[in-house]
C-alpha cells in the first residue's frame, strides 16, 4: 500500500481480493486455509489468500503466486473483443485498482495494456450515460457492469451535468416556494 492510500477505504477494500497461491513448504496449523479439517497445510496446494497477506509473504519467497481468475486469458480475450460488454463488477468490484496492484506484484507484460485499453474504450460510453440518464433511475445493463472506479467517474460526471442544467435553467438564482408552504395540509 503506498503512502497516500493509508486512509483510502477503496484501497483497503481492493486489497481484500483473493489471489491463488502455493506454499513452498508445509505450514503447521494452517490447514483451515484449505477448507478441510487437517491441521497442517501441505506444500504446493492451491489456497486463496487476500492480496495484503499474499503480497507480503510472496516477497519473502514463501509462496508462488498465480494470476487471479478475473484476469485470466478468457477474460482478456473478452475484454479485447468487446470491452463494453464485460461485466467487470461481477468479476471483481475493484477491477482496475486490484489490477494495478497485480501489475506491480506479478510480472505480466500484457496486462497493463489490456486494462488501459479496456478503460479507455469504456470511458466514452460512461460519459454518454452521464449526459442522458438520471442517477439511480437507469436500469441499463452497462451501468451495473461498471467497477467501483468507473462508478465513481459516472457519479462525478453526473453531478456536473446536473449542475450545468440547473445553471442553464437559472435554478440557482430563482426564488422558489419553500417546500413547507407548497405542501397542502388541507387544514388551513
Amino acid at each position: 500500500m503506498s503512502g497516500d492510500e493509508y486512509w483510502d477505504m477503496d484501497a483497503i477494500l481492493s486489497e481484500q481480493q483473493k489471489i491463488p497461491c502455493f506454499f513452498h513448504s508445509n505450514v503447521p496449523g494452517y490447514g483451515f486455509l484449505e477448507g478441510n479439517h487437517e491441521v497442517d497445510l501441505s506444500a504446493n496446494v492451491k489456497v486463496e489468500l487476500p492480496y495484503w497477506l499474499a503480497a507480503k509473504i510472496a516477497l519473502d519467497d514463501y509462496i508462488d503466486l498465480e494470476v487471479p481468475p478475473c484476469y485470466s486469458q478468457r477474460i482478456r480475450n473478452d475484454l479485447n473483443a468487446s470491452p463494453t460488454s464485460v461485466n467487470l463488477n461481477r468479476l471483481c468490484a475493484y477491477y482496475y485498482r486490484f489490477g494495478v496492484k497485480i501489475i506491480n506484484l506479478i510480472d505480466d507484460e500484457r496486462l497493463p495494456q489490456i486494462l488501459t485499453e479496456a478503460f479507455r474504450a469504456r470511458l466514452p460510453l460512461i460519459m454518454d450515460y452521464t449526459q442522458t440518464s438520471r442517477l439511480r433511475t437507469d436500469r441499463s445493463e452497462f451501468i451495473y457492469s461498471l467497477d467501483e472506479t468507473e462508478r465513481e467517474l459516472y457519479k462525478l460526471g453526473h453531478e456536473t451535468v446536473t449542475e450545468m442544467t440547473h445553471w442553464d435553467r437559472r435554478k440557482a438564482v430563482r426564488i422558489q416556494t419553500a417546500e413547507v408552504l407548497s405542501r397542502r395540509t388541507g387544514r388551513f
Partner: protein
Amino acid sequence: MALPKNLRNGFAPTEVEFLAESDMITIVPLHKMDALQLINGTYGPFRPPLKQEVPLWLAMTLKQKHKCQIQAPDWMDVDFLKTKLDEETANPEFSPMPFRFMEIAHLLLGCASDDIPQAETVRTLLKDLREARQSKARKGLQGLDPHYLQVDNMGLMEINEIRPFFSKAFNELRMLEPERTVGDSQTTASGMMSMS
C-alpha cells in the same frame, strides 16, 4: 473537506459565472449620472449619448433599473455565430471563442435580451455551437492519453464542466501505467500539470 460535496470537484457553474461578471462591457447610459466611485475603480461620469465601459455586474444592475442599454459584444452577432458554427462543424479542433463566452451570453440573454439584436436566433446558435463543442470534448475522451491533454480554445465554463470527469479518468489511466524508472517520471508530472 468541510465543503459540501458538489463544491469539492472544482468551481460550481454559478461561481464561474460570478468570475465572468467582472469582464468589461460597453453600455449606453439613459440617464445623466456622476462618476461612481467603487473599490475596484471609478466608472463614469455617465453622459447619455456617450458610451461607457463598465464591468458586467454594474451594467446588469443599471440595466435592471432601466438606466442603461447594454451593447452586445461583437461576437454575439448572428452572422458571426453562423460562420463560427460552420467552422466548428467543419474542423475537428475547437474554434477560438472568447474565454468566457458561455457565461457572458447566459447573463446577457437573461437580463438584457431586448438589447441584443435577434436574441432568439443568437440563443439557438449558441446552443448549437455548444452542442458541437460538447461532442468534440467527448471525442477527445477517446484519445485520452495518460501523459497530457491539450485543451486549446475551450472556454472556462467548458473546461470546468469536463474537469472532474476528465481529471479523474486521467489519474486512473495514469495509475494503470506500470511503474517506471525515475527518468520517465518527469513526463507524467508535466501531464498532471496540464490538467490541474
